[in-house]
């Protein structure tokens, strides 16, 4: 994996100014919006399961 060294990426500068790319992947993946970081329900259940397994609830 390499990295860009230009201060402004030419590829980004060449990208459209409006979103024109197709979205791929899980639409419910974890992300931070504003200062709220969303935890999807399936992860909450996974964590609860882990706590149950370790007798913490």
């Amino acid at each position, binding site marked *: *994996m390499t*990295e860009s060294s230009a201060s402004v990426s030419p590829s980004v500068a060449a990208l459209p100014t409006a*979103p024109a790319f197709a979205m791929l*992947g899980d639409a419910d*993946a974890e992300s931070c919006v504003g200062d709220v970081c969303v935890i999807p329900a399936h992860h909450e259940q996974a964590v609860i399961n882990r706590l149950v397994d370790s007798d913490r609830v």
Partner: protein
Amino acid sequence: MVGVHVSDPIKVDIWSDVQCPWCYIGKRKFEAGVAAYGGDVEVEYHSFELAPDTPVDFDGTPREYLSARKGLPLEQVDLMLERVVGIAASVGLDYDYDHVHQTNTIKAHELLHHAKSKGLQLEMKERLLRAYFIEGGHVGRIEDLADLAAEVGLDRAEVVRVLSEERYLADVKQDVAQAAAYGIQGVPFFVVDGRYGVSGAQDAQTFANVLAQVASERESVA
């Protein structure tokens, strides 16, 4: 895909913030996805400010910040943070929210642009995230940032100078404006080959699949 050769690295532009827990988790998953893909990938990080109104010297922990900001009971915040810590641990990251310094990340973003100009952006990004989430480091003050920058090979005095002069502030603002133009509302956000958007801390296999898809499409039109 005019001008793109099959053998060219696949460019991935990543919008991210230093104090975004999913960005560090997503970084690990993305790196695993790149390894699973196996081809050449070129990465460039872009600035995104989740909480630009946070003071540099916020007097409190993320726990207190979230509670005050969202009006949540501390017990509920503790549960939220425990969930994040658990998921971080699943990708090998030992988050320490008891010692995280909530701060403003604008200077950290300026530093990432400076590091990019020196070919050290990936190293700087990793160092900032590790300092913030794992080591309890401060990523808002110029002197602290300069110390971290020196660790990855940047000239400390030069870092202090460019951050004091706000030499890369316009670049940060341009990244933020570009994100807004794209409609990016949350981070991490990955733009792959300028054509595909991937939002959030996806599974490693998802990243690998997207990269393989781009490579396959390049070969089909070559």
